[in-house]
């Protein structure tokens, strides 16, 4: 299997093949001396010339992360065969900017109407969660082209609340 994985602004070509019980892998065409075992607690134990790494996967409402030791990565995986792609919903947006809910909660105030002009950093709406009111700001100067929620509506993490053109 061949995957294109983008991690920390770099894209790697990862080739995986299984020989009897063990994984062989190449990184950007070069053999990568990784000795890999999947532990039954869902952790990959990886030995590379003696250095020991534990890699696990984190499932979040915004997609999957990879955690190596204590470092969290948000990879984009592209499988040329199936074109199935793992990518964070928010990073998918190109061009027009979106305001997405960073957490589940309830919209308690909408500060600007659809169609209104906003400046970067201007508050657009307020979402309440865990007894805290959190103001979501416009990522850019522009016009509110979409306002997908009303005051009082519950929102899910990652839900697109507004779009700015």
């Amino acid at each position: 299997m061949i995957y294109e994985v983008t991690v920390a602004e770099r894209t790697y070509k990862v080739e995986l093949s299984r020989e009897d019980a063990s994984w062989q892998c190449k990184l950007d065409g070069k053999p990568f001396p990784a000795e890999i075992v999947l532990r039954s607690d869902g952790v990959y134990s990886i030995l590379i010339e003696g250095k020991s790494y534990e890699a696990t996967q984190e499932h979040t409402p915004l997609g999957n992360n990879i955690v190596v030791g204590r470092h969290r990565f948000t990879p984009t995986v592209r499988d040329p065969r199936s074109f199935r792609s793992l990518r964070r919903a928010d990073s998918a947006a190109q061009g027009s900017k979106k305001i997405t809910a960073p957490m589940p909660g309830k919209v308690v105030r909408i500060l600007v109407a659809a169609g209104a002009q906003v400046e970067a950093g201007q508050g657009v709406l307020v979402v309440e969660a865990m007894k805290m009111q959190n103001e979501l700001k416009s990522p850019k100067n522009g016009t509110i082209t979409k306002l997908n929620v009303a005051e009082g509506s519950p929102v899910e993490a990652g839900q697109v609340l507004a779009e700015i053109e």
Partner: protein
Amino acid sequence: MFKKLLIANRGEIALRVIRACREMSITSVAVFSDVDRTALHVGKADEAYHVGPANASESYLNIEKIIATAKRCGAEAIHPGYGFLSENPKFARACEEAAIKFVGPKPSAMEIMGSKTRARQAAMAAGVPCVPGTARGLTLAEAEIEGAKIGFPVMIKAAAGGGGKGMRVVRTAAELPSAFETAGSEAQRAFGSGEVYLEKLIENPRHIEIQVLGDEHGNLVYLGERECSVQRRHQKVIEEAPSSFLDSEMRRRMGEVAVRAAKSAGYTNAGTVEFLVDSERNFYFLEMNTRLQVEHPVTEITTGVDLVHLQLRIASGEALPFQQHDIVMRGHAIECRIYAEDPDNNFFPSPGKITRLLQPSGPGVREDSGIYEGWTVPLDYDPMLAKLIVYASDRPSAIARMKRALNEYFIGGIQTNLGLFRRILDHPDFIAGRIDTGFLDRLLSAKENGAVPVNGLSEIAALSAALFSAAAPSGNHGSSNGVMPSKAKGAASSGWKRVARAEGLRNL
């Protein structure tokens, strides 16, 4: 000792009290709201009763409902934990009237210490040093006179206040009128009383507090101090005992003053006297918390006493089993408060499902938590998930141990402030003990000193992402022993699909 005790709280503190009950052969009774039916404290208690909807004012703050529940199940006492009803004299009274023992001080003591102005008056009457200022509510006119007397900069504070609301720093007389007005209306909105007063502003103070403990036979002792200067917006984040700023002489003086302040209010059971300490080691009475503190474990570990056990013994009428001179602090303890919030994104709260949980253990590590893998953290309550406490023989070893424990700690699926602690523990000022209540805000406003160097780790991450992708669809490979853990697999595939959907890809 009581046979049955109701815990009017949730989360880690409910678990903490349940454990004490089990250790003392007391039947523990939990209460829960609609969204907490699957919370850990419900399963771990001996009994559990529903007390209302998610909204705390109708459940965990519902005095009538909680008293009625206690009566119905025959609980002889109620432990309020912290927050919720813990500092509400009305609740303590209601318990009294229902002939249920409230585990805490008498309502009268709570009322005195509950009002900033009355507490301040009591403290001054007892000869406890207070921040220069007015002890009572003021008109603007009075405020202008007093401000001049005290000398600027001054702080405007709400008499009924707390948590920074209704607070304003005033550096010149000119700023006073507008600040006075806004502080007053803010206080009105927040606490239903616009009463405000003035205090001298202590620049970059430390927040150091003294744990006191009194029985109902007139014995009252202090159990050393806690250093709580690492705060974000008046919210404690890291606490330590002892404070590297205090010597035994100053500890004794602050302790004796704290005992005086508590005695002046006829205080019993566990309480905390908070002080501001300036750079010249002057200390000023700030306020008294009439309950068990979140950070009580650092005191337990360094003094070797169990505060919750003692709260229950005291409430059941026992005398303190020790005297002041028996109390010896040993070693150093640090506590980190683990919050479900995102330090990289305005500290937005982060409720949701905990998809993975790895908890630290081993020498010198204590974890008090109320969470489990698979639990969905509700969005209705405060975001504290757990407390990680470490102990070692000295402060540097304790810091090193905390970093080790943080490395073992992993909470997946939601955002937490776990990563923030490493930044703090690695900061030269923290290491040197140069901390004040402004330390953390300064650290946060400072640029992240570059992303953490991930030497070669990104290759590993890339490889792992590919491995999980390969394992996800079928699940009959991707494992050295042919076994694909249902946990990883189930979640993984769903994770993939979800994202694919989010991108409108249908060719799965």
